[in-house]
């Protein structure tokens, strides 16, 4: 599959959007879907649908097999040791909530500390805040430096003998900084502290190897990986999934239910209560296959080239100010234009079909630190081209013209 010709795999680019060719630069928010994923959902509902893991009729067995195949694909894709370490959730948000809730229940008590960073997405802060309220724990934030990075030293500085878990982003959705997660895990493990990685922005863009990273938990969002909405993955080491209490109660996650008491199901069923997003899980397998077909190394290379091209172009554009300058950076360019509010930028760019995001990108702590109420953000996906970057730059120039800059 030729990466330079990949747009044609995505039906969204077939038609004009508001009379424009779509320049989609909002993949950090959510990615577009290749035809194979869309078709898989249609086919499953029209030809193969049944609930999984319960009935013994033909369709139920076939659907269960398909559902479990995705689990194995994910396991291989992220090089997890065991397929039972893959738990399906409704998204990365639920994956983090699952850990915060169950780990919090069992291992956190008053005065204990959870260590996050200043660049976390709200979904890796709010679930821990619930525990701050419920259990009187403390939340510490490792600081970003002037380049918008969080270094190993910044993490180390905030670790105390009260730190019970560290939860950090793999790749910042604002500055694009790639955190030294392997080193963070090594450091944390040397102090017996487990680590959760919020991999929302990591999984779609970087090669993953759970056994190599050695983290305890890794949260993945399906819809940012060219997959359907409503599906995410929690990778967790088996010892944790066996040790921690269940998250939600319901059908499918139990072993035996009696009036006197209940025993819970084996892994991975223990954490998959109720009817799951069956069609989405099955279609997510196509996203994984799609990415494998292109090759993650090729995706990384392609996006890095585009990022460098975009950074160079925008740096030359005076009055554009790029947020953060991390040495290790993923395909995210957050920026401001002196004299134009990000929301005005986004509206004006949209007029030419250039779709970006404006706001705090669910990172208010970071924006407070940067002393910016909002930024504009162009984020890359596998389908972007240099032409998209050129159009972004032209639209920015139009913006400046409207505002007489």
């Amino acid at each position: 599959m030729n990466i330079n010709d990949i747009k044609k795999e995505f039906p969204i680019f077939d038609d004009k959007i508001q009379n424009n060719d779509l320049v989609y630069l909002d993949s950090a928010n959510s990615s577009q879907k290749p035809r194979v994923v869309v078709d898989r959902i249609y086919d499953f509902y029209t030809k193969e649908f049944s609930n999984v893991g319960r009935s013994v009729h033909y369709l139920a067995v076939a659907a269960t097999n398909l559902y479990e195949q995705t689990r194995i694909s994910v396991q291989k894709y992220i090089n997890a040791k065991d397929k039972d370490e893959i738990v399906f959730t409704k998204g990365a948000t639920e994956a983090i909530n699952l850990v915060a809730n169950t780990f919090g229940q069992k291992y956190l008590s008053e005065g204990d500390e959870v260590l996050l960073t200043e660049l976390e997405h709200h979904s890796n802060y709010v679930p821990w805040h619930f525990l701050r309220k419920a259990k009187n724990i403390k939340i510490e934030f490792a600081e970003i430096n002037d380049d918008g990075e969080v270094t190993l030293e910044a993490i180390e500085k905030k670790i105390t003998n009260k730190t019970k878990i560290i939860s950090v982003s793999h790749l910042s959705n604002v500055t694009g900084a790639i955190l030294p997660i392997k080193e963070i895990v090594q450091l944390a493990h040397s102090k017996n502290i487990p680590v959760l990685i919020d991999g929302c922005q990591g999984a779609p863009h970087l090669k993953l190897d759970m056994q190599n990273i050695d983290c305890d938990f890794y949260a993945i969002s399906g819809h940012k990986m060219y997959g359907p909405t409503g599906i995410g993955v929690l990778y967790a080491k088996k010892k944790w999934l066996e040790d921690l209490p269940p998250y939600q109660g319901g059908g499918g996650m139990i072993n035996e239910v009696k009036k006197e008491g209940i025993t819970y199901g084996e892994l991975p069923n223990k954490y998959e209560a109720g009817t799951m997003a069956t069609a989405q899980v099955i279609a997510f397998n196509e996203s994984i296959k799609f990415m494998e077909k292109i090759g993650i190394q090729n995706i990384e290379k392609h996006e890095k080239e585009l990022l460098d091209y975009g950074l160079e172009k925008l740096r030359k554009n005076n009055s554009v100010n790029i947020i953060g300058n991390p040495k290790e950076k993923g395909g995210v360019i957050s920026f401001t234009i002196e004299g134009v509010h990000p929301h005005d930028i986004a509206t004006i760019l949209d007029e030419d079909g250039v779709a970006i995001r404006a706001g705090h990108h669910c990172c208010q702590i970071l924006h407070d630190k940067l002393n910016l109420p909002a930024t504009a953000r162009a984020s890359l996906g596998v389908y972007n081209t240099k032409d998209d970057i050129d159009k972004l730059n032209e639209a920015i120039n139009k913006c400046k013209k409207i505002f007489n800059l």
Partner: protein
Amino acid sequence: MDLKDLYQEIILDHGKNPRNLGKFDNYNKDAKGNNPLCGDNVHVYLRLNENKKVEDIAFEGHGCAISMASASIMTDMVRGKEEKEVKEIVIDFLAMIKEKDSLETNILNDDEKTKLMSLSGVKQYPMRVKCATLSWHTLTSALDNSDQTIKTEE
């Protein structure tokens, strides 16, 4: 949709150089408003005299050109007017932004109406309507002595 309808000269002017920006000492009513989706916020201060007239009004805050221009034009427009007149203007303005083609109140003269109508371009941009209305909802809250911060999201 036409960007020129949204970013008219008067909007760009008020957006860039908002009138009545700041705070004054002897205000007797104030309220805060924010738009959590985009981080815009506004704080409206006003002084209502014994005759229920808006003696002075100002605002603090930050936001996009639309929200700053809207707050700027609004504060210009309601200064010197009586409370019940202000309320009528607010209702008329919000109705215009949401559904009506024109302003109906007799309190405003034609010049003032033209100025306010410059904000009508946001109708074509549903996501931006909140930018134009935030300061107006906040003004109502200040007049009603409501302690609640106005939010554009529930």
